[in-house]
């Protein structure tokens, strides 16, 4: 199709000719980037993901409160509304009202009402709670906050009076990084086993392919559950984190191994590989200069598409109580609070982490789709 379009006379303007020239001299990566930019959904997803990851990386700064800081006077407080208008009209600087607690004497339910007399303007780059940034140096600067005496709970608080927004931002660091670390581990296993399978062929290939098939025919969740239940309960949180990641990637490597093997087999038979061999290239040079660029893009696509299953796997395990445990807080750990339907019905904001999980997973899927279209030279 595209060939026909290019030859249409009315499209051969001056500008187009220039475009075409740069089109023919562009490198493979430039071509991909050009195609990728046209994929609006994927570009939007990159933006969303960068935002989420920045939040995760700088969570101490973005979150107005600490992970564990408890406001005992504000238990199960619903999300606060941010106002632009008061009785005097519009304010450029948004503000929140103070909260008044009322306890129903019969049901002992706590309810919160806005106290219109107290007004706390939202401030950016404020000094607030002290924290240790990346465990390296002390700081107390926060992206936003309110004056002393006021509180800001953008997404409400949980049963201990901890700010949900802060906890979700802290959780992003764990949930989003586990996807990356898990995919990285899967990549290592996939490259080694897929590479061996494609390079050696024969019996090795058959055995590895059979193992992959068996692993793929296994229902993953029961297996994940069993493996993560086997992690000793006395392990420190950080080791549990890596344990869970290893469990996830022990099953997740199969997709990557298949891509590596398939591409390796196809590229090995190409004429240019033979030409390189005839020209006297060493094996390492053939692999690094001729084969790797050929399937690197496919590996990146496959990696992007396997991150969501890692994130979902961790979320499910933590939700069931078999995965990460507090004090390590991921989105799954937060959702564990939302297991009981009665609690959720009274405090629906406890389910907000669901939205973040879905957003991250969707964004990775769209990004992967965009990358796949861009990396496919025949598309």
């Amino acid at each position: 199709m595209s060939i026909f379009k290019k030859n249409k006379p009315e499209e051969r303007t001056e500008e187009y000719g220039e475009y075409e020239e740069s089109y023919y001299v562009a490198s493979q990566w430039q071509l991909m980037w050009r195609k990728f930019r046209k994929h609006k959904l994927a570009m939007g997803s990159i933006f969303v993901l960068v935002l989420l990851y920045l939040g995760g990386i700088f969570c101490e700064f973005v979150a107005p409160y600490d992970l564990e800081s408890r406001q005992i006077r504000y238990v199960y407080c619903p999300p606060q509304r941010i106002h632009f208008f008061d009785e005097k009209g519009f304010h450029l600087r948004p503000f929140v009202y103070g909260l008044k607690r009322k306890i129903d004497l019969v049901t002992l339910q706590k309810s919160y009402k806005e106290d219109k007399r107290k007004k706390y303007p939202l401030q950016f780059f404020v000094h607030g709670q002290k924290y240790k940034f990346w465990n390296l140096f002390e700081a107390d600067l926060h992206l936003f906050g309110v004056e002393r005496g006021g509180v800001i709970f953008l997404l409400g608080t949980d049963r201990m009076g901890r700010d949900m927004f802060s906890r979700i931002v802290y959780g992003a660091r764990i949930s989003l990084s586990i996807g990356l670390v898990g995919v990285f581990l899967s990549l290592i296993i996939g490259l080694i086993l897929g590479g061996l399978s494609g390079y050696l062929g024969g019996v090795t290939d058959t055995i590895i392919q059979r193992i992959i098939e068996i692993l793929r025919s296994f229902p993953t969740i029961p297996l994940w559950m069993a493996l993560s239940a086997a992690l000793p309960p006395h392990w420190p949180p950080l080791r549990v984190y890596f344990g869970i990641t290893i469990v996830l990637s022990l099953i997740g490597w199969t997709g990557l191994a298949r891509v590596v093997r398939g591409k390796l087999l196809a590229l090995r038979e190409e004429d240019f590989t033979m030409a390189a061999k005839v020209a006297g290239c060493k094996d390492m040079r053939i692999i690094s200069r001729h084969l790797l660029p050929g399937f690197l893009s496919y590996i990146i696509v496959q990696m992007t598409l396997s991150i969501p299953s890692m994130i979902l796997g961790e979320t499910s395990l933590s939700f069931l109580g078999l995965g990460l445990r507090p004090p390590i807080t991921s989105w799954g750990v937060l959702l564990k609070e939302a297991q009981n339907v009665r609690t959720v019905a009274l405090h629906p904001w406890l389910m907000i982490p669901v939205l973040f999980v879905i957003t991250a997973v969707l964004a990775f899927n769209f990004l992967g789709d965009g990358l796949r279209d861009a990396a496919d030279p025949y598309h």
Partner: protein
Amino acid sequence: MLVYIARRILYMIPTLIIISVISFIIIQLPPGDYLTSYIAQLSETGESVDEAVIASLKKRYGLDQPMYIQYFMWINGVLHGDFGQSFEWNKPVSELIWERLALTMAVSLFSLIFTYVVAIPIGIYSATHQYSIGDYFFTFVGFLGLATPNFLLALVLMFLFYKYFGLSVGGLFSPEFVEAPWSWAKVIDMMNHMWIPVIVIGTAGTCGLIRVMRGCLLDELRKQYVVTARAKGVGERKLLFKYPVRVAVNPIISTIGWTLPSIVSGATITAIVLSLPTTGPLLLRSLMSQDMYLAGSFILLLATLTVIGTLISDILLAWLDPRIRYEKEAA
């Protein structure tokens, strides 16, 4: 055909052996063995530990022997229907699992049927109305369904039902039927409760299949023979269903191989959220309390049934589509 079936069954044997080894490893993973936990449990409740009982149990499970002999004793027992002892329930495992497994399979089967019944018509609609509002709507819903994990969907549904209808959805039976023996009324009652888990479990698979069905049918509709038939004046309806749909359905059927594991997997976690009397909640509980013979048996049987289900679907497919049979035999 018979040769094909025989070959497939032969291929299944190494798979089953590896599954059994993995299950055995899972049983052995926690520190200590079944007997130590049993003794610990007995002394916790203050009961005296009978040396003779211990010795006989030790002999029965070969606990004083090397690992591979233990494996053979265990698998020998499994083949004779003895899955070991659940120390949490103090019952043989085989008494606990079968009804739950049967219910799991029922839920999975209905989910599978739901997946196909919903996905194929929507896929056809999306492909024939490409870039229409309906197509965009289903594409959007499809992506959303793919991104939402089962248990979150279950959670959201439970919340909505509770909030707007005051219903607490969960379980597979009404209270009066939970303990009742099986009867026709109980089956009907189960069917009434079945649709929520079926929708929850089936959604992810449905969304995936809609994408596949749409893509396959679009490819097929662009082919020459469709154009030829249209040029000759074949009616649109006949044109669609006579060949393109039939060709496009085949790849869908052959995806059972990966749909089934994901459905069983989804059924496990959804069952925990919705507290269905299937394998999920019991598996979680046994893993939490390290009741490993029970957990291992569940893993073993879930995986085995999945593999058998895949085998049956492969045979059905080969029977439906002769091309597959010949391709495999030629290879």
